[in-house]
């Protein structure tokens, strides 16, 4: 925590000095810092509010039944539906997965969700199909979906005591 604060202080100081002496690379970093922070600020607060609501309203049994140890194939359907509608990217999918983990989702489902949230998001897929072509999108889905389920189940086998939580 303290180390991060020092690091962040140094970073902000560097940006300030760069601005003062018109150090171009520093100014470029400043611009990319502002634009990336802004793209996070637009999404992350909403995501955490929805996660908070999920925490208090959704019963543990519901998640456990559909995504827990005894869950059936239909569990994958829920995980993919949730992944496709996740906004942002990993930085939203990770806290969402942590929320699912608290409610008893099993490890294989968590990793499947994470992987799916990176590659099946609806707005992104529409952009892809429009600009690169629907054939490209179909190949990507057909090849990657079974593989990411396999990889996720392998992760669950490799890390039997896996626990997910915001640390720090």
């Amino acid at each position, binding site marked *: *925590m303290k180390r*991060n*604060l020092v*690091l*962040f202080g140094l*970073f902000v100081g560097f940006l300030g000095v760069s601005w003062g002496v018109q150090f171009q*690379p520093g100014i*470029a*970093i*400043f*611009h*990319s*810092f502002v634009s*990336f*922070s802004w793209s*996070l600020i*637009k999404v*992350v607060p*909403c995501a*955490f*509010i*929805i*996660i*908070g*609501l999920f*925490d208090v*309203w959704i019963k543990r049994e519901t998640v456990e039944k559909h995504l827990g140890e005894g869950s059936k194939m239909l569990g994958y359907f829920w995980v993919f539906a949730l992944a496709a509608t996740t*906004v942002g990217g*990993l*930085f939203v999918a*990770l*806290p969402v*997965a*942590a929320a699912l983990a608290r409610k008893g989702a099993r490890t294989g489902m968590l990793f499947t969700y994470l*992987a799916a949230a*990176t*590659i099946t*998001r609806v*707005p992104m897929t529409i*952009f*892809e199909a*429009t*600009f*690169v072509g629907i054939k*490209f999108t179909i*190949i*990507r889905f057909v*090849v*990657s979906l079974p*593989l*990411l389920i396999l*990889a996720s189940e392998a*992760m669950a086998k*490799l*890390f039997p005591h*896996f626990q*997910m939580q*915001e*640390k*720090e």
Partner: protein
Amino acid sequence: MIVLYIVTGILLVVSWKANATKTRKALKIAWKRFARILPAFGLMVMAVAIVLPLIPPEFIARSLGMNNRWLGMTVGSLLGSISMMPGFIAYPLSGILLSQGVPYMVISAFTTTLMMVGVLSFPLEKQYLGTRPALLRNLMSLLIALLVAVITGFAFGEIAL
């Protein structure tokens, strides 16, 4: 993006009407979880801020336009892994590159790793998953992305047995 605000707003209002105490608790939980992970978010933002100006889209475009497709695929997967770009920039860029003759398999390697592999978001991922699971997840994602790229190459007749 607006949909996200509308959904969040509706959920909050419905939740408040149903049970104000519970909703207050939800907001408290949201803040607590956010505050706990904020340092990792900060690290990620710094990493992105420093690295992204080093690999601007023009540089990526030039690097992917290499003659050798295998080399292009390798470079594409590396650039995709360390870069971060929203879909509304990455895919139009990919469309332009395709029209300039860059193979589909190179585009595939770049865009798939861009989405699945996150070197810059690793500090955040590590906090949630732990170092080893996070590393392995990224490694497996890289392998899957390369496989997708190769099969894309076959499907578009860019490589043959």
